[in-house]
């Protein structure tokens, strides 16, 4: 009896950080044979997510995902990371799901498999030709994770390995609240002491009292940490977190962030969250627009005196990010600090601009902090492929902006 003729699948690295690229190669296939490359992930919430691409092997019986084209599936064309960013819940899943890693001390596991032929469904009922397991980590080895419960501030601090000292970052998510650690863990893996803050606990919030002092205290916790360079602490916010970032940068007399990153943010102070339903998806974008004309409801961005990077999606259905960015630029130019501002705006990109290769969701279930206990289906916007490209590009620009402003020994400049 002859030995097995199974194809050989190799994925490198099998253990990598979530923002590292994968090299997926299949060999020893029959030449010119159609195969499907499939990735499966079982989330912490017990849902299944999958992505797949249709390929044809070459004369040597080889498929290389970074070089060959996918002719169908959840992504097409030459997409070296399509098996990750194009993931979506498997047919029959609950609606409105969003994939977020809550426990960053363990990796995300992806089963990458090769199926014979061009398959589009029923993967679970078939046996693949071969498969490997890949780990994707938010935390590099040696990164320390420390619970913070100090001076009223709740959060998690991530410290890179090594003696330091390191630059620091205050990392804030949006109105969904909760303690979301993965971006901070990843930033620490890139050399920044990062504090993920829980500032908007969904349970507690009636008085949406985003206390100023709370953020100043949090900022100082980082600044005063023995492994942090005190004058190299920045702020990073997404959505509501952007508003906080701009507000602190403009108004605080106590803390002076070295630089700011605002993703998908607006500079309006919200007083209520009223919604306009559209296709049963709540769209919050349009309600903000009329506030643009009222200066008392906006952050006085003219007072910001550190480099600030705005990252926005043109198809953001949650906040009018594009219009806000325009207005911020106008205000800052008028105040004479326009040179500190850099803006990137991505076409067909939605609100949730996450670390690269994270799956895109045009809408998902959202429990607004403070809006009674109602869960709504919120429209974020974006088309999967351009949104994923934006995530990849934005992350690179964000890291380079941070590197320049927090690590470089030359004086910080806003322009990338």
């Amino acid at each position, binding site marked *: *009896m002859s*030995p097995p003729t199974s194809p050989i699948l190799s994925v490198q690295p*099998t*253990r990598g950080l979530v923002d590292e690229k994968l090299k997926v190669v299949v060999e*020893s296939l029959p030449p010119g044979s159609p195969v499907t490359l499939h990735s499966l992930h079982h989330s912490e919430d017990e849902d299944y997510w999958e992505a797949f691409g249709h390929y044809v092997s070459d004369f040597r019986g080889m498929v290389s995902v970074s070089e060959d084209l996918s002719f169908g599936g959840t992504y097409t064309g030459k997409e070296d990371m399509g098996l990750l960013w194009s993931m979506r819940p498997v047919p029959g899943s609950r609606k409105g799901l969003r994939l977020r890693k809550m426990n960053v001390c363990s990796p995300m596991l992806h089963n990458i498999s090769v199926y014979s032929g061009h398959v589009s469904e029923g993967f679970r009922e078939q046996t693949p030709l071969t*498969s490997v397991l890949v780990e994707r*980590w938010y935390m*590099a080895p*040696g990164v320390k994770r420390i619970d913070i419960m100090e001076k009223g501030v709740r959060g998690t601090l991530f410290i890179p390995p*090594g003696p330091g000292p390191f630059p620091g970052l205050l990392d804030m998510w949006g109105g969904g609240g909760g303690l979301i650690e993965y971006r901070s863990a990843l930033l620490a893996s890139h050399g920044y002491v990062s504090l993920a803050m829980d500032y908007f606990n969904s349970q507690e919030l009636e008085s949406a009292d985003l206390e100023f002092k709370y953020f100043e205290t949090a900022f100082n916790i980082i600044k005063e940490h023995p492994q942090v360079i005190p004058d190299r602490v920045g702020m990073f916010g997404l959505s509501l977190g952007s508003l906080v970032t701009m507000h602190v940068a403009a108004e605080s007399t106590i803390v002076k962030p070295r630089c700011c990153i605002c993703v998908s943010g607006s500079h309006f102070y919200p007083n209520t969250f009223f919604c306009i339903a559209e296709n049963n998806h709540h769209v919050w974008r349009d309600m903000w627009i009329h506030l643009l004309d009222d200066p008392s409801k906006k952050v006085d961005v003219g007072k910001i005196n550190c480099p600030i990077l705005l990252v926005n999606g043109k198809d953001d259905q949650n906040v009018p990010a594009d219009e806000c960015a325009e207005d911020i630029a106008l205000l800052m130019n008028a105040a004479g600090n326009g040179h500190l501002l850099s803006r990137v705006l991505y076409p067909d990109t939605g609100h949730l601009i996450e670390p690269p290769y994270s799956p895109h969701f045009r809408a998902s279930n959202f429990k607004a902090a403070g809006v009674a206990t109602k869960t709504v289906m919120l429209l974020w916007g974006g088309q999967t492929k351009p949104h994923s490209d934006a995530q990849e590009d934005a992350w690179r620009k964000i890291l380079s902006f941070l590197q320049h402003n927090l690590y470089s020994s030359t004086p910080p400049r806003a322009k990338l």
Partner: protein
Amino acid sequence: MDRKRCTLKLLVQPSRGLVDEMFIILVQKAPSGFQLTVHALHKCEDGHSWEAFGHYTADTIGTVNVSEDPSLGGTYSGVEQMGLLWSLRPVPGSKPGLRLRKMNVQIPMEVTISVYQGHQTEGFMDQVPLASVVVERWYMAPGVSRIPITEDRLSATLFLPPGPGPFPGLLDLWGGGGQLVEYRASLLASHGIASLALDYLTAKIIMETGKMVDLQYFEKAYKILEQHPQVHGSSIGMLGLSLGTSITLKMAVYSEVMKLRCAVCISGCHMQPVDGSVEEILKYFNQNADRTRISEENELIWRDVLLPVPSDLAFKVDMGRLKCPLLVVVGEDDQNWPASESAMDMEEMMEQAGNSHLLTVLSYPKAGHLIEPPYTPHARASLFKSLATREKMIVLWGGETAAHSRAQEDAWRKLLVFLKENLYSGSNPGTTSLSHL
């Protein structure tokens, strides 16, 4: 260098890798021409600390690339991409005769790589480095299953690659030190081969009955593999090191039950009583124990105990009857077994019998006895517990560190190609899947 403004960056890629993968160590943004020491520190499972270091000088843009730049001194010199691992040695003040072996393969080896200012040779623990990172080195790829095997009174562990299979199989045998040593089998499973690590000297059944195992013990292990639903029963090989070689050759040539597709023998011999199992083999070795020599450093040299190679066919495996491909790996400075002499005799026997096309010999100058997976620190001598006397003594294995380490790297790569070529069909054994090694 002003610590507060130190912008020196240290990057090691990958930060989590298999033990046989290479890594790249880059130091950037040091001052131009800066002298620095790159240092590796590992605390092993026994609690001992191991270190290695190389002296480098940053170029005009402040970069040091360990894969391209020469180390000017330290525990290794020259351009040595993996020198920080293979030249690891116990820190000063450690107990003598240590050997680094991973017993728990389910968690990685953690190595701290640091950069120190200047060209230093000691006192690293008393200083604060300029930068450091932690690197994980794994013996098990994600998805490899570890299955303890106790049926048929075996003491073994099966490692299955991820995926549906079926996979080729391999019996993995270590040498005279005994114990259930899993790391090579788990690493082979990480390369797609279902591997069974087998304890045949200190197994439970031996402890309980007081008797050495017979040849049926090995055949039972073979059957476990053969009958496993995820193993391709007709693609099973066998790998032995040292005493494990003796068993491998005996089974490959004489067993009616084992139909091995190929065999690998590392640092071993074909000299043994042809009729006899483990006990007889050990007795045969002990009969000339008086030929043991002692080195100047009081280390035991056992290689002469098995010499000269006998001409009596009752005392060497009849290599002419071998029917499967055989890879023989020997270190020319092996002070423990006369592996080179044996390899030469095996070749002669096979040439006379007309089956020498099955034989490949890899002979490495200045390599010693313990030819392990790549980047395993070289132990020229170490404490060894003799099963016969139950005493621990320092045994000389041989080998010169740099040459031995090069041999480990080369032998492993060739061993993987050999196994894949013989255990899978087709002649293209995943060249890409090995290219990162």
